[in-house]
Each structure stands twice: as structure tokens, then as C-alpha cells.
């Protein structure tokens, strides 16, 4: 399925769903939820937050489907909405809340669902390094490397210029390289608070 074809189909689907057609909503959800969830988890480093943000994203996006004009695929449009929610979430979440989350994370009985049920970032050096990046750097990196987006789209999603998006991306790469190579303690002890800066 060519990109062009995908967009046309996406646009038709979005038009159908604008009128509140529930099957169309559901089709959009089915088509996109896996990738969006994966992206939001990477971006937030927190499954619970990703789930909440995902709910928020769909609610906002499905209500505003009329603003989707087929510039990119529906998925990339949804991802941009989701990213905005993520950035907003980061901005709002004070250190206090993050501390509480860490507290909750550390004190949740793991036995209930096994390790995979809890926070995936723990013990994962890569995700921990990812968490240390600033939100925008992380977003630029993910959009580029995970989602193969062109810089023009990354810039649009981040709400900045293309050159700025490139800078975010390159800084992110540089940081990740440094952290992963050095393997310094902060990266691997799963302490996400370095991301606050």
C-alpha cells in the first residue's frame, strides 16, 4: 500500500468518523493503538502514564477529526497529538508527582503480575538513558529512529522549525551515545529523575 494511497484512505476513514460513526472510530483505534502505545511508552517511560495519555489523545483527536486534512497518515497525526499531550504532561508533572510515582513504583508489590507488569524502564539501560533526555530531544529521536519520520514532520509535531528539530535530534543522539558508552551509574540504576532538566 503506497503512502499516497494510505493517506487517501485515512482521509476517507476520518471523514466517516467525523460524524460520530462508532465503527469508524473503532477502525481508527484498531489501526493505530499498537504503534501509538509503543511510542507513548518510549516517550514517557511509564506504562500507566502512557495509557492515560493515550486515552486523552484519542478523546481529543476523535473529537477533532475535522482538523485532520490528510497531510500525513492518520497515525502520524495522532502521534503528533499524543506528543503534544506528552510534552504538556511533562511540563505539568512537578518533581513531587514524579517522586510519588517513583515511590509507588518501588512499593508496588511486584508479585501480582510479574516484572513485566510493572514499569518497563527499570533495569533497561536504554530506556533509562532515553528518560534522561529532555522531552523534545527524546521525541525527535523517537520520531526519527523509531518512526522514520522526515524532519519536516518532526518539526511540525514538535511545533518548531526544521533546523531546531535537527538540533534536537543530533543532541539526543550525542547524549545517548555518551551515556550508553560510558554506562555511568545514572543510566543503569533506573533513576529517571535526571530527566527533569
Amino acid at each position, binding site marked *: 500500500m503506497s503512502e499516497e494511497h494510505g493517506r487517501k484512505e485515512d482521509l476517507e476513514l476520518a471523514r466517516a468518523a467525523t460524524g460520530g460513526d462508532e465503527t469508524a472510530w473503532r477502525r481508527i483505534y484498531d489501526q493505530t493503538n499498537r504503534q501509538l502505545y509503543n511510542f507513548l511508552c*518510549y516517550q514517557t517511560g511509564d506504562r500507566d502514564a502512557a495509557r492515560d495519555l493515550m*486515552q486523552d489523545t484519542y478523546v481529543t483527536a476523535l473529537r477533532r477529526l475535522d482538523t485532520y486534512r490528510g497531510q500525513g497518515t492518520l497515525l502520524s497525526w495522532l502521534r503528533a497529538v499524543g506528543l503534544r499531550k506528552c510534552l504538556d504532561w511533562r511540563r505539568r508533572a512537578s518533581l513531587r508527582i514524579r517522586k510519588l510515582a517513583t515511590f509507588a513504583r518501588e512499593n508496588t508489590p511486584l508479585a501480582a503480575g510479574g516484572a513485566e507488569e510493572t514499569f518497563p524502564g527499570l533495569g533497561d539501560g536504554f530506556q533509562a538513558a532515553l528518560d534522561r533526555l529532555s522531552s523534545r530531544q527524546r521525541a525527535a529521536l523517537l520520531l526519527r529512529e523509531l518512526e522514520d519520520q522526515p524532519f519536516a514532520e518532526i518539526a511540525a509535531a514538535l511545533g518548531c522549525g526544521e533546523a531546531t528539530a535537527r538540533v534536537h535530534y543530533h543532541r539526543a543522539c550525542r547524549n545517548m551515545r555518551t551515556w550508553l558508552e560510558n554506562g555511568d551509574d545514572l543510566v543503569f540504576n533506573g533513576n529517571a529523575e535526571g530527566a527533569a532538566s
Partner: protein
Amino acid sequence: MKRFLKHDKYELGDRDRESLWHDIRRELKPAGRPSLFRTVRPWPALTTAVTVVALAALGVWWIDSNRTDMMGAGHPGLLGKRPGEVVRQAEPAPLKYGGKPLADEVVEIDQIEESASAAISREEKESTEGAEYMVEVKSAVTEHSVRSETFEKHAIDSVDDALSKKAGVVNRAGELYVRGGRSGEVSMQTTGVAGSPSPTVTEAPGKARQNAAEDAPPGSVTGGTKPPNDEQVELMYFEHVGVNPFVATEDDSLSTFAVDVDNASWTVARNYLDRGLLPPADAIRVEEFVNAFDPGWAEHTDDVFRIHTDAAASRFAEGYHLLRIGLAGKSLGDEHRKAANLIFVIDISGSMNRENRLGAVRKSLHLLLDELGEGDRVGLVVYGSRGEIRLEPTDISRREVIARAIDGLASNGSTNVYEGLELAYGLARKHYEPAKINRLILCSDGVANNGASTEAEKILSLVRRSSDEGITISTIGFGMGNYNDVLMEKLANKGDGNYYYVDRQEETERVFRENLTGMLQTIAREVKVQVEFDPRLVKRWRLLGYENRDVADRDFRNDAVDAGEVGVGHRVTALYEVKLARTPAVPEGISTVGADWEGPAVRVGTVRLRHEAPAHDTARAGQVEEIEQTLLLSQFAGDFASGTVGMRAQAVAAEFAEILKESFWAKESSLADLVPVADGLAAEMPGDPTIRDLAAMIRQAADLQDPVQQQEK
């Protein structure tokens, strides 16, 4: 890098995917209509209780039908029923709602969808950042309907298993907590519903909740502190209206809005801070903070309106200016006030018992009674579960009869606001006198939870219809804990009246003693303002506040559009932040940099004001008038310190409001920085109680704000 990033690293389980979709759909379904009256069923706490029981029962039923024996004996009310049948137990309402208990009744499982609303609230987050603006109207509380299919599809093991599938609920060490947020935004209804093994079935749910709340460890993830006075800080209704964006003058040179003379948001915030809580962001309306202050315009008695303008450098950002547009309504001595036919509509529902709200109402009415004079008449309608006429309109000369009726107010039942209003309007219509002021005064905590219609549309259309007939309504809000700000504001707005919120004795005096004429006698209705900026001179502009008073530019001269009302002596201020253009767009000979702006009168923009004469102004009723005033470039010369006290106080109030509102534009400002500015103002104007309050409130808020959060800024 790529080898680390996988498309399927994080996955939702099938069950989670379904439940997430269910949550999304539930939120989308009632979309499109702001939830003005969240259906507060008669006993919110009880509803939860019922839900918990229902959930437990479902759990039992499911477990039972799977032939496991986890529950054991000891639930005689539930076991022994056939599957598909749940007993809704009658419990005494744990909150002082005064509601009558539900009779025992049997509910088919299929009916649970509508009746069992697990009122699990979550904070609704909205994006207010940056250019991609998506302003949505939402309420702070959502309800969750439990569908029987959901339970059939997703088997549950226990009550907390079911509850913990809700977003916003955290299962920690076997206890459930509602996750984080600011004060008041977090419903604590489910907080600490004790965890497994589900004991909620046998214990009174209210008690379970209370115990668990007390036992909650310090620093638990409930996100709230223990509410003051042991009040449950739940069910406060505010509306999220977003924050106005900056607009490029080239794209849109017109700013149009309906005036708002109220200042209830200011007193609501003051009440929060008095109780040691930060007000929720949605409770803040910037324009109402600004209008709480004396703008310093001279009074006049001739024209209906005068437009005042001034400007100074902005405190928000360098290179920006704060433009102040003031509308002053003409003043009249109290002796010129027209005689009034007043109908008091008093909420005497159970909730009015809390914190002695009804006592405050009685006091307020007595105060008002003292201010009334010859020719005025007063009627009294009350509503609890039903509406009732307590006093036919009675002439003020029989003061003691009225006073006795006021003293006789006692609370009962739930809140049937529609019936109360219908009766009151009927009474007002019967005694309608065109030459007089015909006004309803509604005193309530704004909780509409009973009666044929708790839907917004029906009540609002009644109010709107009546105001077109010349019977207007003012709303006066009391109480905290389950206050409905949205309803009270909308009623006054649609009903061409004012909206006040009374938090202290002084506020009562201010409303009823100092402002009575202004409150009762409208000098103009449907007041709209349009400011036109010259795109060559003004690059960008942003209106501070008035988010929910927006009028489409093209509707400025459409007199059918509902707008604001202004009473005698009322003043309205609108603040704009503007960015002036630098060269070369500026005409020759004028420098926009520095203070050297004395020059020819360069027009930067125009302020237009359109209004309609009110119904009791029999000579001119319905006539529309439009006035305008020019904005000059020379007005923008001064720096902030050179502005008048009135301007600086209003600017600080606006900044304070924007910080509390978590406005994107105020993210560089901090409360700590505002403290000295406000203290300076208070020292300059020792006699102004509002400025004194402002300084105290900013200090309080700065103390309350998380120090870490401040540091981050």
C-alpha cells in the same frame, strides 16, 4: 540506535486494549455538550456505595458462577440471589446530604448500565500550550457507567481488581487510591476504598471510606491533603475554558467579547486560599480577578457609558505592553434606584445545611432587607425536593412579615432547582410591573440534583425566556465542597443578572449594601466590546481572560447574540497584552522605542461598545447604541511603574490569576516574584481592602505552591 528501538517493545494486553477503548468511547459519547450539570444523582456518596456493592455482587456472582469458593459465607444479602439480580442496599447517606434513604429494590443486572455509576473522577488534562490550540470545554468530573457486558467479558476477581482497571486508580499494597492532582480537582470518593479481601459489602461504605482515608499513610498517592473541617473536597464543578492565545493582528485585527462585571471567581479563590488550598486552575477567570479592583476611573452621571483607556509596559514580557480598556457605567445615587419587585429563591436542600450555608443566606437576606426602601416588594420561594411559595410578594412596609419568613428557613431534601425557579418566575410574572425592576435572587450552592429536569438546557431556556420578558435573575453562591460554579455563572449570564460568590461577612456587605443599586438596576444589556487594532502598528495581541465570553467578530452588530449586562456604577476592565510593531511599518517621525513618543496623534486602534437599553427603561427599551474611542500611540509611552495604582493592581491581579490558571503565558512568572510587587501596592494604598487581600492571597498561594515546582520554574 535503531536496534534498540522496537515497534513491538511495549504492548497492551487484549484486555487492557478493550478497557481503554471502552474508556475512550465513554468519554466521547456525551461529547459536544459542556457538562453543565453533571448528573449528580441524589446521593453521590451513596451512588458510589451502591456501585461498590454492585461491583462486589458482580464479583461474587462471577466467582460463584465459576464455582470457586473465595467469598465464603457471610453475605446473606447477596448470596442466595439468582445470578442477574443485585440487591441495592439502602444505606444512610454518609455525607450530610439529608437525602431520604433508598428503599430496598432489586435491580436487574442489565439495568446497571444507567444506574450504577462508579463516580470515579479523574483530572482532565488539557493542552493549553503553543500554537496548536485545542480549547475544549470539559468538566472536572466524569462519571463512569458500568456495563453488564463488560463484566461478562472481563471476569474480575475482586472489587479492587475491577476498580483498579480504571484510569486514575492505583493499587498500592492492596489499597486503592485516586492518583494525583491539585486540590479540589481530585475526587476522593473512591480514595481508600479498602482493598482486598473485599470488606465493603458488609461494612457501611461510608465508614469504610472514612477509615481508609484516615489510615492513608503520609505521602500516599491520593494527591490531596486531608480536606479542611473534615469536609470531603469533592464535586466542585468548574469549567475548563482554556487560555486565550496571542493573535497576529495581520490574521485578525478584531477582538470581540461580551462584558463580565462579576468577580465571583475572585471570592471563590479567596475562599480556597483561606482554607489553605490552592484553587483549581479551572476555578480561575482572569477577568473576574481584574474586575474585583477599583480601576480608578472617575464616576459620571450623564452618559450611559464612558470608555477609558491607558497602557504601560507589560510585566509579563519585555517589549510588550499592557493595554487597559475600561468601561464605566453611569452612577446614580441610591435614591434614584427604581423600585424593585424581588423574589428570593432559596435553596434549602440538605447540602445547604453544611457549614451553615443557610445561616449565611439568612444573614445576607436580612442585610438586604435593611437596604430596601419605599415601593420595594419581596416574595420568597424555597426549594428542596419540591418548590414552595413561602411568601407572596409583600410590600416592604410589612418588614416584620418578610423577616419572619426569612427566619423560618430550614433545610430539607434534595435540590429541585427547576421547580423552585418555575414557581418563582410564575410569581414574578403575576406581579410584574413594567416600570419596576423585576428580579429573582437565587441563593444556592448550585447543586442541581433532583427534579424533572436537571439538564442544563431546560433550566437555562426558562431563565433566558423570562429575561426576555423582563424578569432577570442574580445568583449568589454559598458554600464549598460541592459547589457548582458553572451553573451559577451560566444562570446569571443567561438571566441578565450578576453572579456573586459570598465567602465572608464583608463580601455580603459589599454585595448587598454597597453594590445593591448596581446589582438591581441594569443600565444596559447585551453589552459587547470590539477592539480593532491597526495591523501596521500592532503586531500581536492577546486578551487576558474573557475566555468564556467570546463573541464572533461578525456578531458584534448582531443584537440577537446574548452578551453581558451592566448595572449602575459598574466598571468593567479588559486587559490586553500587545506587541507594537517596530519600524518600518510605523509612520515617519514616530519612534516606538524609548519614551520619546510625544508626537502627532497616531491611531493604534479603536474601541467600540454596543449595548441595548434594558426593559425597565421604558422610554428607550430595546434601543441599541454604539460608542467608540480611539487608541493613541502616545498612550503606550510609560513604563509599568508610571501606571496608575488602579492599573498596576489590576495588572498584578491578572498575573496572579494567570499563574493560578497555569496559563502558558505566565509560565515565566512566579508567585514569589509577585509578592513584593503586591506588598508595595498594599503599602501605597493602605485603605484598600481588596489590594490588601491581594497581597495576602499571593503570599498564601506562594507558600502553598510546591517549593520544588517553584524551583523548577
